[in-house]
């Protein structure tokens, strides 16, 4: 082959690859755009965390946990809000998790998926998961009006609204977890003479617990960060005491942040930032626990 012919072939190949290959300008440009998309989102997160930290790190001290709201930002703290959040989330967990697991067990293990009622329930759960959270607050408000309950500011009322909010999420997550358990587990149990109920509660459910726990923790972390439904239920209130019971008045950490954010003094903005750091830290911890549970305990079939 003459050098000239070789040169032509090489030149053609280079030109062809340059037009459509991995290193072409358009391909590289595309990759740069994709990187930019990802990095922009991450940068936003970093800026958010950094600005919040700069504003609030000073106030991230014991006062946040031990002091009560006050008109002087130097003396104020989020103690009732933190305890209120704990009470509301704890009550929500007790209300929503058993109910969600029970519904998911029924839908996944026992319901005839061709029956019209069960199909409606399934579509319904998908719909409920996408409804704006404030509507659950309105539902609870209407329910209270129906039963002539006058005082809305009680822990169980807030927990009721949040439970209805996260119930679809728990149901969906539990169903996924149950679905991942292979049929052989159930079949083996039945073959050994267990009833379907015994199979579910002694074999299938325990095998699905890591997935259920992950889903439940993620659902609760969502409930912890919600403020809108509770605003409708009298959550924005000044408390001079610790919430201490299901019937007690309460406020929550997101609502306290909302309260302080709206105040013009810089001292309160710093407090809002500090409380935000605390809230995000708690949520990250919960998410990390959920991921750890999923990675460590999830059975690989």
């Amino acid at each position, binding site marked *: 082959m003459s050098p000239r012919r070789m040169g032509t072939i090489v030149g053609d190949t280079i030109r062809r690859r340059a037009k459509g290959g991995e290193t072409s300008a358009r391909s590289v440009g595309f990759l740069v755009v994709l990187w930019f998309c990802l990095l922009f989102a991450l940068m936003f997160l970093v800026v958010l965390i950094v600005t919040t930290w700069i504003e609030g790190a000073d106030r991230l001290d014991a006062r946040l946990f*031990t002091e*009560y*709201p*006050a*008109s002087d930002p130097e003396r104020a703290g989020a*103690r009732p809000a933190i*305890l209120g959040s*704990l*009470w509301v989330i*704890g009550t929500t*967990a007790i209300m929503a998790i058993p109910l969600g697991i029970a519904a998911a067990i029924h839908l996944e293990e026992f319901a005839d998926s061709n029956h019209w009622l069960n199909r409606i329930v399934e579509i319904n759960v998908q719909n409920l998961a996408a409804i704006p959270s404030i509507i659950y607050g309105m539902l609870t408000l209407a329910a209270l009006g129906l039963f002539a309950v*006058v*005082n809305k*500011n009680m822990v169980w009322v807030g927990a009721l609204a949040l439970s209805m909010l996260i119930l679809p999420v728990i149901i969906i997550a539990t169903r996924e977890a149950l679905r991942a358990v292979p049929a052989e587990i159930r079949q083996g149990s039945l073959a050994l003479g267990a009833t379907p109920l015994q199979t579910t509660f002694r074999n299938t459910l*325990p*095998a699905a*617990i*890591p997935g259920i*726990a992950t889903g439940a923790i993620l659902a609760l972390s969502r409930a912890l960060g919600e403020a809108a439904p509770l605003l409708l239920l*009298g959550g*924005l*209130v*000044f*408390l*001079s*005491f*610790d*919430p*201490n*019971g299901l019937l007690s*008045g309460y406020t929550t950490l997101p609502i306290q942040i909302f309260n302080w954010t*709206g*105040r*013009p*003094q810089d001292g309160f903005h710093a407090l809002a930032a500090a409380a935000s750091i605390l809230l995000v830290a708690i949520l990250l911890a919960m998410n990390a626990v959920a991921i750890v549970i999923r990675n460590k*305990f999830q059975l690989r079939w």
Partner: protein
Amino acid sequence: MNSKITFVGAAALAASATLLLTGCGGQPTGTETSGAGISGSVTADGSSTVAPLTEAAADIYRDVEAGVQVTVATSGTGGGFKVFCAGETDISNASRPIKDEEAAICADAGIEYTEIVIANDGLSVVVNPENDWAQCLTVEQLNTIWAPESEGVVTNWNQVDPSFPDVALTLYGAGTDSGTFDYFTAAINGEEGASRTDYSPSEDDNVTIQGVAGEPGALGYFGLSYLEENLDVIKGVEIDGGAGCVAPSVETVQDGTYTPLARPLFIYVSNASYAEKPAVKAFVDYYVENAVPVAEAALFVPLTADQVTVAQEELATLG
């Protein structure tokens, strides 16, 4: 399988233990129970102008009697009266006197109450710090700005007064449940509730501050305490009520020269709650007897000596 159940059980146990420990936790640190060991709850609702005063009182009172649990909500003066006359609250914070219709509702429901003037207030008109043309506004000019007929019409400062520059007028103010709204519209527009509607209404006066602080052509109104707390971001306007420009301050409000926007602030105490709930009695007694120091701590205009005497007399009728 067993380890997982143990793990979940342990986690549940830990969570409930934490909840019980913090929830049923003992006295908050830093307070000694030096009081008589009274416990109970006190519910207050109503004006967002008066709420900081009641909150300040509750804050101070917690150091005296840790067992008294005070809840203060802000539904606006009108909203506060609605729940008060339904028997749901013990104290109603109000930045205007109770209306006849509201008093009738209370009477129908069998709620007897006592009206106590707890502090004074100068309703302040505020503008952005960059606003150097509106140092003093007359009542007529305010009426031009806020009258119902001005809706959609008066949108620029130079329409208020030809000497003012060409700057867009953005308005912030109180919502319709607010006693501040009722009082301001009555004083400026001559009729309670008469106002243009194309402004940013909010029951939360802090939104007004944020709004006014952010735009050069903005104007808003709220109680004096909010102005005094935020002099670094907004500016007060002197009001000419017919006798010259007067700036709102403790003195001008107390001696009545800040007209027509000087007003008393009230709490309405449910007689039944006072009689039946020791916590309510203790808190109200403390609040009224210490009305002047509490007002000073919260940057409100305190009662004059005469007003203090009247308040003590009202308190005595309760007891």
